[in-house]
């Protein structure tokens, strides 16, 4: 019995050390990048219309908008439209909040986490119009680019994508 208890304690200790806020290693389902890692996603030169949405799990209007972006991503999977969800949660919540959230909401659109505290530098690079609130969305195709600091309904997204 004593040996069993010690064994269980060891198992618990190992499990605890594995989950204590450490970033998973190896290939991540959701990559964590700084602004220089994000930049290529904002500047692809092909015929695809990219919808790059900045959001976080704690942001209520973002969470309300997310199903519309996910739907768009699925409905237009054959059209030259690609949705990229740039997550702005604090990286310490990668395991405890972001990954469970994506699973729970069945998000299949591409997600990357932007971990770059130097916001004063990168916000203006994404758009000088951006005041810094989220949700915010960049829509671009080649050199054509528009920035929106607001949430969209599905119908609004379709309209923008169809007319872009």
């Amino acid at each position: 019995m004593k040996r069993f208890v010690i064994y269980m304690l060891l198992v618990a200790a190992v499990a605890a050390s594995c989950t204590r806020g450490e970033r998973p290693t190896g290939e991540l389902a959701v990559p964590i990048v700084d602004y220089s890692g994000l930049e290529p996603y904002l500047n692809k030169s092909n015929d695809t219309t990219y919808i790059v949405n900045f959001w976080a799990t704690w942001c209520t209007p973002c969470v309300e908008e997310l199903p519309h972006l996910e739907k768009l991503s699925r409905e237009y999977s054959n059209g030259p439209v690609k949705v990229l969800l740039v997550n702005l949660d604090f990286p310490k919540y990668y395991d405890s909040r972001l990954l469970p959230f994506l699973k729970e909401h069945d998000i299949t659109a591409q997600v990357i986490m932007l971990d770059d505290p130097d916001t004063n530098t990168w916000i203006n690079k994404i758009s000088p119009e951006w005041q810094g609130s989220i949700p915010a969305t960049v829509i671009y195709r080649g050199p054509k680019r528009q920035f929106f600091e607001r949430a969209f309904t599905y119908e609004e997204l379709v309209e923008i994508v169809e007319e872009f």
Partner: protein
Amino acid sequence: MKTLLISLAIALASLSALAQGVKVGDKAPDFNLKNVDGKMVALSDYKDAKGAVVIFTCNHCPYAQAYEQRIIDLHKTYAAKGYPVIAINPNDPSVQPQDSYELMQQRAKEKGYPFAYLFDEGQLVYPKYGATKTPHVYLLQKRGADFMVEYIGTIDDNYKDESAVKEKYLANAIDALIAGKKLALTETKAIGCTIKVKK
């Protein structure tokens, strides 16, 4: 008809001016809002101050929470030097229940806020400033009886880790004002939580 059109145009123009808020160099709009202690507080009440650090912030926003201790520390450092913090919650509690007046009182008590934490009831003040998110900082300096906007933006360059901060934008700006120097940087940007308004 023509006069009507002209007055409409003027009304629209003033509306859009309101929506844009203040810029650096503008006079800061006065306000008179309820503090967490139940008393009304106006910017013009700060008669002996050299300026003020008006921060639109709130209870619920993770960025506001990340900066909460730094806002307390800023007040502790700069109130004595004539630059008190005045925090204003701009959110509509019917949209964001965590930002109700009662929960503001609770938060201020729990954390021992040494500064005024005011409720923008009816959401009339934040549009005059043009605040778009929490936290959103307006550093004001008093000239005569007027408070003038000197700096708009964020507190520093690292929201998630105070120990990794390289540039203390706000503290540097206050120090420069105290020293009578020109500000090197008058505007910065940061991510924040959208101000919650009923649709």
